[in-house]
């Protein structure tokens, strides 16, 4: 196999994809918090692009650049107001070649 599956990182997977990043305009934001909720914390595992990570203060941060716009985080954390969710501006974001 051409891929080393054991040490494969999701970043390497995302590298295959085509994105048009909208600089300075992230389409998803995490609301400032002291301690993340269970759902917000779960996103650090469940987000398929690994956009969510825990920082050294124990808070969840997002880097939306690799986002595939699936909506999983929206389903889990928009109703509680923990994240602010939008689609990227028209034309920006992930551009699937195959889909």
């Amino acid at each position, binding site marked *: *196999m051409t891929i080393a599956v054991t040490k494969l990182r999701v970043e390497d997977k995302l590298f295959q994809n085509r994105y048009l990043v909208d600089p300075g305009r992230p389409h998803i934001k995490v609301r400032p918090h002291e301690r993340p909720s269970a759902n917000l914390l779960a996103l650090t595992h469940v987000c398929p692009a690994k956009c969510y990570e825990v920082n050294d203060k124990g808070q969840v941060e997002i880097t939306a650049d690799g986002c595939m716009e699936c909506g999983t985080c929206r389903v889990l954390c928009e109703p509680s107001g923990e994240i602010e969710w939008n689609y990227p501006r028209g034309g920006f974001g992930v551009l699937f070649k195959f889909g």
Partner: protein
Amino acid sequence: MIAEEFDAIVIGAGMSGNAAAYTLATHGLKVLQLERGEYPGSKNVQGAIMYANMLEKIIPDFRDDAPLERHLVEQRLWVMDDTSHTGIHYRSDDFNEAKPNRYTIIRAQFDKWFSRKVREAGATVLCETTATELVRDANGKVIGVRTDRAGGVLYADVVVLAEGVSGLLGTRAGLREMPKPETVALAVKEMHFLPEEVIEQRFGVKGDEGCVIEAVGTISRGMAGLGFLYTNKESISLGIGCLVSDFTAAMESPYALLDAFKNHPSIRPLIAGSEVKEYAAHLIPEGGHKAIPKLFGDGWVVVGDAAQLNNAVHREGSNLAMTSGRIAAEAIVHVKRRNDPMIRRNLTLYKAMLDKSFVVKDLRKYKDMPALLHTNSSNFFTTYPRLISQAAQNFMRVDGTPKIEKEKATTAAFIKARSRWGLVSDALRLAFAWR
């Protein structure tokens, strides 16, 4: 910006949106379709299998120029544990018919083609435009949409919400609820490229013939989920999906699940040597009949994934999407021809027509299935697959143990794992949910 008013605005250029826009335009309505992607298909993800009959009802001669990968002659259903698969295969030369029934497709290519047909039919398609808000009049009737482009509101008599599973407009306007973690599955998929002849050799197909593998079992680690492998012309679509609620409770990562699936000894040889060219993720509506929202209102209808019109049991989605888009458009055309306003009372025709179609009939048939699989996932996706593998191996392995003892051991294993009552109860619940 376009300052004119339209008969209909269609939000989204996926299967349901294209079906709706095409049908509306061919009936002479003035249609504007908005798509947030750079080109139609650039935001769309599917497995993907396309069912010919439902597209034929919209574009009868689609086979002449639609980008189709392979028509399916073989379907495999695998029940897997960590090292084995027990399979049901169905293959028939009958599927090599003049007008095949099912095809694998690549959505980015297929949607571009479908969108070209929409434009040829006379609709205006505006890409790179995200609709941000529904606009209503003083009575609450939807009269148009606001977009992220400069300029004002785009007006129409009716808005067709074909905005997908995570559509913003309808949920923000309170026309329907957001999907819940237990009513959507998160699926991840990779595109594995291999030479055509390698695919043909590995799957025992020739020419345009194709093969499908769908797999359940320990690959979903006790979560309600499904793995799949679809053969395209010179690539394999390979993915796995589980309910978002299960992913969350288990704190599992979808990419880890996908890599484990790829590494399963039954799957690995099928994709050996492939070049991966894309990794995609998408939500799939799994709530079934009980999750279908209100389908119409004053100045709006909702179709496809946005309306949760997906048959998870049969893994049918795009055909329900296309059919709901077509039917919604036909209902709108009917109301328009009578010169009636696009209000709730008149658009109820859409629901009446959809209720009579296979779309709602099929979803009603399986209305109890999502709840059953959701509450019983570890039994159906781990316990039984392990038992089935043990039983099969016990049956195959010739080791001098008398057959009667082997049979007893197999029965005992089932009873130990689920108890007599548990087995009967699971069987009955499954039978009733299936009925």
